[in-house]
C-alpha cells in the first residue's frame, strides 16, 4: 500500500473512475487539491467563471456523452453557487458528482470563514451526499458516489471534504467492491406484471407509448423501436424523452405536454392503454392530473418504484430497467394492425398541424430552428435554455437519436444553455453543438463565453433575441391581461460582447440572412455567436394552460396567424 495525501487519493480515485475532465473553480480550502492537480495530467481541469457554470457544464457533459460529469468548488459561496446546477441535475436525473471543499475539521460547525453547511443544503437535491472526515475514507466515498450517480435512476451525488482531509496522509487502498445494503435498484421486471402489461396492450385498440428520459439513460432506444414496430404502437415522448425514439420514424408522433403537439396531446387523451416508459407523469407533460384520460388503463414502466402511482393511479406497474424489461415485453406482444388508430392520429395531425411554419414578414424563431434542422440534416446537438426558444427548439428540430437535445426540463433553469453547451462540446468533441439561447437566460451565465475561448471550443451560440423574457411575456399577455411587468430586458450589444471575449459574432435581422449566417457559423472552426433579432410578439403554440387538461390544448389563435 502507498501512503498518499487526501488530495492525491481523491485524484487517483477520480482517475480510476475514468474521469478525464473536471469543471471547477479554486478557492481557499481546495488549494491543497489544486496544488496536487499537476501530478495528474490525465485529468483536465476546466476553469469556469462562476461555479453554477461548473455544475451545468458537468451536467451538459453527462447528458451529451452519457458519462458521469464532475464539478468542483471551494467551500461556502463556491459550494452554494453549485446548488442551482445540482438541483437541475437532480430534477432531470442526470449522473453528476459534485465535489466541494469545506473548512478544516476543527472549524466545522464554528461558522468559520467561508463555511456553509453544504451537505445540509444539498441533501434534498442530491441522490446521496457525503461529508468525508478522513483521508482513508475518500476511496469508498468516491467509489460509492460514482456507483450511485450512474446506476438505477441516475442523479447527482455530492462529496464534501474538509481542507485538512485533503492534507492528511493515509494508506491508499482501492475498494474492489462496494456493498450498499440500502441501495439495490431493481433492474429485472416482475414477470407477472410484464405478462399483465402484455395482455392489456394486446387487448388494446388504441394503445400509446409515452417514452421519457429513462429511455435515453437506459440506452433502450433500439428496444423501444422494436417494441413499437412489432405491435404497431404509436410513440409520443415527454420533452426530455425527445430523441429516445427517432422523430422521423413513422410511428413517432412528437412530444406531448404544455407545448407538445396538438395531435400528441389528443392521442394521449384518446388512448385506451397508456404505456409510460422511463418517465414520471410530470404535470407539464400530463396537464391536470384529475382530467388526464380517465378511461385509460395506465401501464407504467420505470426503474424508480417511488414514481409508480405518485401522480396518476397506475393499473399495471413494472419496476425495472427499460433495457431488460422492454425485450421481455416485446416478446409477449402480438403483432397487430392498428392502422385505424394510427389513421385517427394522422387525421388529427392533418386537421390541427402544430409544426407548420407559416409565412411571415418578420423573422420568427421557429423558422431559424427549422432552417438549422434542414441545414444540419438533424445531426447537430442542440443545448437550450428555458422558455419560448426551448420549446421551439424541441418542436421544430427533429431528433433521430438520443442525447441530441440537451435541456433543463424539470427544474427549468434559465442560463443552463451556454455552460451546458460547453460541457456537451467537451463530452462529445466531434459533435456540432449549438447553444440555443434566450436573450434573458444568456445574460445569466454569459461569463462562460471565456471558457469557449480558453478551451477553443467550436460552440455555435444562437441567441433568439426578442428583447423579452419571452415565456413570461406570453403568460402575462394570455393570463394577466397584457399587464407586462418586468419582462422587457435591456441588453448589451451581444455581438460587441462576444467580440470583447475574442469570439466571432454575427447579427441577423432579416429572414434572408438566416441561412448564410448558419452556414458561416458551421464553416467556422471556433466559437461563434449569432444574435438573431426575432419578432417580439411571437408566442409558443399549441399550449395547455397551467392547470388545464391535455384535452383542452389551445392552438394558435387566428389573430396571430399573420405577422
Amino acid at each position: 500500500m502507498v501512503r498518499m495525501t487526501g488530495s492525491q487519493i481523491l485524484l487517483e480515485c477520480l482517475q480510476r473512475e475514468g474521469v478525464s475532465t473536471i469543471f471547477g473553480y479554486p478557492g481557499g480550502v481546495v488549494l491543497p487539491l489544486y496544488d496536487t492537480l499537476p501530478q495528474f495530467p490525465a485529468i483536465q481541469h476546466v476553469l469556469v467563471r462562476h461555479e453554477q457554470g461548473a455544475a451545468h457544464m458537468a451536467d451538459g457533459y453527462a447528458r451529451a456523452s452519457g458519462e458521469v460529469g464532475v464539478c468542483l468548488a471551494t467551500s461556502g459561496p463556491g459550494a452554494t453557487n453549485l446548488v442551482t446546477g445540482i438541483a437541475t441535475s437532480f430534477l432531470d436525473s442526470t449522473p453528476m458528482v459534485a465535489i466541494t471543499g469545506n473548512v478544516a475539521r476543527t472549524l466545522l460547525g464554528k461558522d468559520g470563514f467561508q463555511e456553509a453547511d453544504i451537505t445540509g443544503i444539498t441533501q434534498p437535491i442530491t441522490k446521496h451526499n457525503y461529508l468525508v472526515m478522513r483521508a482513508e475514507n475518500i476511496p469508498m466515498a468516491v467509489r460509492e458516489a460514482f456507483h450511485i450517480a450512474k446506476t438505477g435512476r441516475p442523479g447527482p451525488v455530492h462529496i464534501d471534504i474538509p481542507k485538512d482531509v485533503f492534507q492528511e496522509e493515509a494508506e491508499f487502498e482501492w475498494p474492489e467492491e462496494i456493498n450498499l445494503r440500502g441501495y439495490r435498484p431493481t433492474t429485472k421486471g416482475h414477470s407477472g406484471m410484464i405478462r399483465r402489461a402484455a395482455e392489456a396492450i394486446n387487448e388494446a385498440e388504441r394503445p400509446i407509448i409515452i417514452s421519457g428520459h429513462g429511455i435515453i439513460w437506459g440506452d433502450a432506444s433500439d428496444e423501444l423501436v422494436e417494441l413499437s414496430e412489432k405491435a404497431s404502437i404509436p410513440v409520443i415522448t415527454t420533452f426530455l424523452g425527445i430523441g429516445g425514439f427517432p422523430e422521423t420514424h413513422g410511428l413517432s408522433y412528437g412530444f406531448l405536454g404544455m407545448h407538445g403537439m396538438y395531435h400528441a396531446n389528443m392521442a394521449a387523451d384518446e388512448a385506451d392503454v397508456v404505456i409510460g416508459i422511463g418517465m414520471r407523469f410530470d404535470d407539464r407533460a400530463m396537464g391536470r392530473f384529475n382530467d388526464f384520460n380517465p378511461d385509460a388503463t395506465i401501464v407504467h414502466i420505470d426503474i424508480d418504484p417511488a414514481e409508480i402511482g405518485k401522480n396518476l393511479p397506475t393499473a399495471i406497474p413494472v419496476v425495472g430497467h427499460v433495457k431488460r424489461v422492454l425485450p421481455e415485453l416485446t416478446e409477449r406482444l402480438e403483432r397487430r394492425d392498428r392502422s385505424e388508430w394510427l389513421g385517427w392520429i394522422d387525421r388529427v395531425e392533418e386537421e390541427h398541424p402544430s409544426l407548420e411554419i407559416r409565412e411571415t414578414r418578420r423573422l420568427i424563431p421557429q423558422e431559424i430552428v427549422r432552417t438549422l434542422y434542414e441545414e444540419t440534416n438533424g445531426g447537430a446537438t442542440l443545448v437550450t435554455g428555458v422558455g419560448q426558444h426551448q420549446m421551439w427548439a424541441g418542436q421544430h428540430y427533429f431528433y433521430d437519436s438520443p442525447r441530441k437535445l440537451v435541456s433543463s426540463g424539470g427544474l427549468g433553469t434559465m442560463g443552463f444553455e451556454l455552460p451546458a453547451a460547453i460541457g456537451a462540446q467537451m463530452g462529445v468533441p466531434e459533435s456540432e453543438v449549438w447553444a440555443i439561447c434566450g436573450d434573458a437566460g444568456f445574460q445569466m451565465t454569459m461569463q462562460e463565453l471565456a471558457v469557449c475561448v480558453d478551451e477553443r471550443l467550436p460552440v455555435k451560440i444562437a441567441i433568439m433575441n426578442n428583447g423579452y423574457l419571452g415565456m413570461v411575456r406570453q403568460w402575462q399577455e394570455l393570463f394577466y391581461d397584457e399587464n407586462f411587468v418586468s419582462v422587457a430586458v435591456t441588453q448589451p450589444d451581444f455581438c460587441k460582447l462576444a467580440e470583447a471575449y475574442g469570439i466571432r459574432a454575427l447579427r441577423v435581422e432579416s429572414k434572408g440572412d438566416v441561412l448564410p449566417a448558419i452556414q458561416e457559423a458551421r464553416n467556422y472552426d471556433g466559437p461563434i455567436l449569432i444574435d438573431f433579432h426575432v419578432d417580439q410578439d411571437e408566442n409558443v403554440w399549441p399550449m395547455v394552460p397551467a392547470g388545464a387538461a391535455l384535452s383542452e390544448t389551445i392552438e394558435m389563435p387566428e389573430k396571430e396567424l399573420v405577422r
Partner: protein
Amino acid sequence: MSSSNGTGPAQHTVVAIVEDKPGVLQRVAGLFRRRGFNIESLAVGPTEFEGLSRMTIIVDGASAPVEQVEKQLYKLIDVVKVNDLTHEDAITRELALLKVRCNNVNRHELLDVANVFRADVVDMATNSLTLQVVGDGDKINGLIQMCEPYGIRELSRTGSIAMTRGAKTTTVHESEPEAIARVHQSQGRRVEADLPFSSD
C-alpha cells in the same frame, strides 16, 4: 391503490432499519418535511445489529399515502429496510413520565389510579408524585386524563416503538449479520467518537 384513495387509517406505523450514521435522522426528517408527510412521533434506537438503527415513525395517514412514504424512504441510500406495521398484528409501546400534583389528602387516591394503569411511582415529593407508565397511546392518554384533575406539573412522552407479534420479524434478514459485519469492516465504518466516516 388502496393506500392512495385517502380512506386509509388515521395513523400509519412505519418501521425503518437505517444505517447508524450521522445525518440519517436529518435525511429522514427532511424527506418527510419535503414531501409533506406529517410525523406524529418518531423514535430511534439501536437494533440487534451493530451499525444499524431502528426508527419507528408514526405518520399522519391523512397527509400521505403510506405507500409513497415507504417508497420515498427506500430511496434514501442509508435506509436498509422499511415495513408498514399498520395492518400487522403488532405491539406498540410508548413510555411517559408524569409529574402530578398531590398532597397528603389525595395521594392514596392518585396511587390507586396509578395502580389501575400499572404505572410505577419513580419519584415522590411532599406535593408531587412522578409516575412512569408504559403502554400504547390510548393507555397513556387514559392515565393523563385521570391525572388531569390533580394537576399535571410536567409531562414527558417518548415516541412509539413497535414490533410484530409472533415469530415473524421486521428487521433485516437473519442471515445478514455476518455479511453486514463484513461490509462494515471493509468500509471502515466503525462509528468512533471523533472523526467518524459520515455521510450527511
